[in-house]
């Protein structure tokens, strides 16, 4: 019952986000600030993880190709498929649930604890729109982050494979072009669009409705990370089932 009530509360919150709009001059500043914090601020860690995980995927694939009859271009093929289909859109989103999600929950939660949200409400501001809408808009640029992650993941695989002596450059490049289905990219970006909305709204919900003090802000961030990850995994499963089978 409690979970149902919270789900209902989440959807009511979403309705209010698109209610009375904040003055555009103020909203524009908030969106730009959120783009800087949530998108630009995440590029470094996403690039680092993508490059090295892409490399590891290539090495693992190469080490498991024991049969000499299997062509070496399979390394590039497996790296591309792993990175584009799952690693970049899904696992980077779970990492982002930790980084961006925790930031959103703790920043809104701190505003709740220190009565800053009450102060905004007393002024007659739609706090849902003021606090959450800019984050949803900022995260519309999230597919760009995933695009960079895809590129760096495959590039990391290429570097690890070629400079690690597992295959030649031509074999790897041939592998990443092998049986390429353009719809896989579309599928990855459809997932990413859903994940970006989840990344903006579930952590916001946990921050907005938290009660208590500083300790509870930490707890809310942890709970937010868990629920954001759970929802991302479930939505990933549903979208995969609907689009790829």
């Amino acid at each position, binding site marked *: 019952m409690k979970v149902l009530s919270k789900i209902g509360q989440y959807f009511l919150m979403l309705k209010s986000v698109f209610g009375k709009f904040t*003055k555009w001059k103020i909203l524009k500043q908030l969106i730009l600030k959120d783009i800087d914090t949530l998108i630009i601020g995440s590029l470094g860690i996403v690039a680092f993880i993508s490059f090295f995980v892409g490399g590891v995927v290539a090495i693992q694939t190469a080490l498991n190709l024991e049969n000499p009859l299997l062509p070496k271009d399979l390394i590039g093929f497996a790296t591309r498929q792993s990175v584009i289909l799952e690693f970049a859109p899904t696992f980077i989103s779970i990492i982002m649930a930790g980084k961006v999600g925790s930031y959103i929950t703790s920043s809104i939660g701190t505003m709740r604890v220190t009565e*800053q949200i*009450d*102060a905004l409400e*007393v*002024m*007659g501001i739609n706090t849902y729109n003021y606090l959450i809408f800019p984050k949803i808009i900022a995260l519309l640029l999230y597919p760009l982050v995933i695009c960079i992650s895809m590129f760096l993941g495959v590039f990391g695989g290429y570097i690890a494979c070629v400079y690690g002596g597992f295959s030649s450059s031509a074999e790897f490049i041939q592998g990443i072009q092998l049986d390429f289905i353009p719809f896989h990219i579309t599928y990855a970006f459809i997932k990413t669009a859903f994940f970006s909305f989840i990344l903006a709204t579930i952590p916001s919900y946990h921050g907005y409705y938290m009660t208590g003090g500083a300790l509870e802000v930490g707890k809310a961030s942890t709970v937010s990370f868990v629920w954001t990850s759970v929802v991302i995994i479930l939505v990933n499963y549903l979208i995969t089932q609907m689009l790829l089978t």
Partner: protein
Amino acid sequence: MIEVQNLKKSFEGAEVLKGISAVFEKGKTNLIIGQSGSGKTVFLKCLLGLFEADEGKILFEGKRLKKMSVSERSVLRQEMGMVFQGSALFDSMTVEENIMFPMQMFTQKTDEEIRERANIVIKRVNLINANDKYPDEISGGMKKRVAIARAIIMNPKYLFCDEPNSGLDPKTAILIDKLIQEITEEYNITTVINTHDMNSVMEIGEKIVFLQNGHKAWEGSKEAIFNTDNEALTNFVYSSDLFKKVREVYHKDDH
């Protein structure tokens, strides 16, 4: 003027406000006093519209809060100023930006005009060399001044303060109390202050409402406190030795 009639509010079955009626007059500092847990903050939040009352009426200049349309409520909110217990300043903004915020949000004035108005209220609350500082770089007393400046920048009709001098040293607390009283008279606004600080009561309490366990247990002026036979109020007021002595001196002079 704010009129409250038979206000009731419960949380998960626990009745916090049990039918409170009171009138808060214009141009006066109206104080709500009572022990922690007596319902002061819930009462204030009901007045502000942050909590919806279960029963009873809240009337602003005769207009019932609950019956107001969205646009009427929106106008009313712009006529309200609030000083929160912890000041509730926006961490990501400088002092000047905090003060300018309500005007930027609700008026069509240019940044220059808003800054000009902000500097007037900054001077009024005696904030010196703090415009470009962030809330975590200023003292508790300065934070309260910023909160007061932010609350009055829109020329409010109503000023609400929740424990405005909590966490301040006695000297600064008196300065903040005096500032609120001066602003109330100067702007001719209805000020409602939530406090359990007896120094505030004696300094600026023009009208006092005493709450006990969600009931209004007493109402009167600061002078009337010395002559009251309300046991709950007497226990509350004279819980410190200092006020017991003040009372003795008061009664000695009286005789």
